[in-house]
């Protein structure tokens, strides 16, 4: 892997804790040009809203807020960092690799950067929902944006 620090479990653990305690892009906007997805029905617990602004094939902005566990919060926070500013095609490749990792299939760790912190989640089947909640939200919004286009 390009960045060997991302092989160190201590560092990965710190990353998750840090994104949980100080989540990035953690503020919703009133701007109506944003698409919005509320993810609350999948489980009893997590309740998050993800917003995005996708224009001309580029994800210009992603934001989120809500009540959720460390895995949901940190994985969504990292997702916003990773996909913000990306072209939709690039984003789809990253998302595909992320879901590959979560499903314990082949994936390219380099494109996932910090999000490789969730590489072991597949071992705790009940937490897969947590690690994918924000990623599913952005996937939905990308799909919608492509329908509109």
């Amino acid at each position, binding site marked *: 892997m390009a960045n060997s620090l991302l092989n160190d479990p201590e560092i990965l653990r710190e990353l998750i*804790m840090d994104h949980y305690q100080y989540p990035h892009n953690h503020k919703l906007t009133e701007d109506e040009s944003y698409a919005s997805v509320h993810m609350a029905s999948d489980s009893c617990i997590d309740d998050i809203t993800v917003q995005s602004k996708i224009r001309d094939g580029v994800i210009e902005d992603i934001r989120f807020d809500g009540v959720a566990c460390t895995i949901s919060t940190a994985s969504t926070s990292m997702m916003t960092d990773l996909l913000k500013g990306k072209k939709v095609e690039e984003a789809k490749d990253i998302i595909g690799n992320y879901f590959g990792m979560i499903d314990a299939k082949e994936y390219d760790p380099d494109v996932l950067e910090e999000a490789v912190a969730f590489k072991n989640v597949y071992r705790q089947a009940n937490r897969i929902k947590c690690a994918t909640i924000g990623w599913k939200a952005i996937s939905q919004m990308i799909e919608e944006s492509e329908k509109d286009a």
Partner: protein
Amino acid sequence: MFDVEKIRQDFPMLVKQPELIYFDNGATTLKPQCVIDAVTSFYTEHTSNVHRGDYAIAATNDRLYDGTRKIFAKLINSDPLEIAFVHNVTAALNQIAYGIGEELREGDVILLTKAEHASNLLPWFRLAREKNLKIEYIETDSQANISVESFRKAMHEKVKAVSIAQVTNVLGSIQPVKEIAAIAHQYGAYVIVDAAQSVPHMKVDVKELDCDFLGFSAHKMCGPDGVGILYGKKELLEKLSPIFMGGDMNARFSSDTNMILKNAPIRFEAGTPNIEGVIGAGAAAEYLMSIGLDNIHEYERKLRAYFIEKMKKLDNIELYNPDNIYGPVAFNGKGVFAQDAAGWLASKDIAVRSGNHCAKILHEIIGTDQTIRASLYFYNTKEEVDRFVEAAADISLENAVGIFF
């Protein structure tokens, strides 16, 4: 003589999983061999439907199935014909709300508490929305206990039904059902008891409580899944309209849509019931009575007191029901999301439940949406509590995230 080590030998799960600390008994309970045998023998030795066959095995099952009413009648001190078998306590409460709903008119009030499980809220909420009824809540203290005075204040002429858990499912608050029933009856209101968390753990006497309806689930008292017990006073059950129409519950019907239904309790058992489940539930009730509900209650009360005293000493733990004397211990690790802490406990072979436990308006009483619920049963031990508390002392964000590496 209550011997927990001997009791544990009755439970194959405990024998086969010696490392497991099962503190999720509020969700469901483990099954003793006698219950498993009662269920499997139905499949291996005497399979048939009930109330329909003219052969010996069918007659055996009629006897076993209907005979189980007597066992439950003994358990809660009712008449056997006041015991109907439904799918779970949720089905029982839905049936009661549906039946009573026919009598209610716009502006009538249903009295509940904010500590109720969804199964004792949503059937009433739906009814309220359909018939323009009003839902009101009895005031409780910060650990969800109703006092007789607060109930008296909540009660008035418009209240037609009071529906409460005898023991609440998150905080284990024991409600004064007998006193509540006496007051409610002065106003002519029905009293409905969700006994899901009480009947498995203590002696419940419906005559003494004088409640009108009561429901509980077999699986929370060492019995199989898919069996609920609906108790109603005989004259009230006879008036109650069944939710489900179908086989067995009707006496006769004709092409002009006329129908004559059977009397209670069969009227509430449309279609082929969970026969093996009911027989297994009867075995579970007999098993609990052989140990003694008073012995079970006393043992759990002492074990819970030992547990909560140890938990009180942990600086990293916030407790939500330290003063309640019974039921689950509801807590959080400070600064740790409940599900994350439950994940840490799971990594130590400890089974608990985290989240809102289907009591989704309880947060209006305790101020949090998320708790960990550690719920005991009579097969749990002090040694398990010790191991649990050791693991709870280590609940931290670092450890909770650490399980993924």
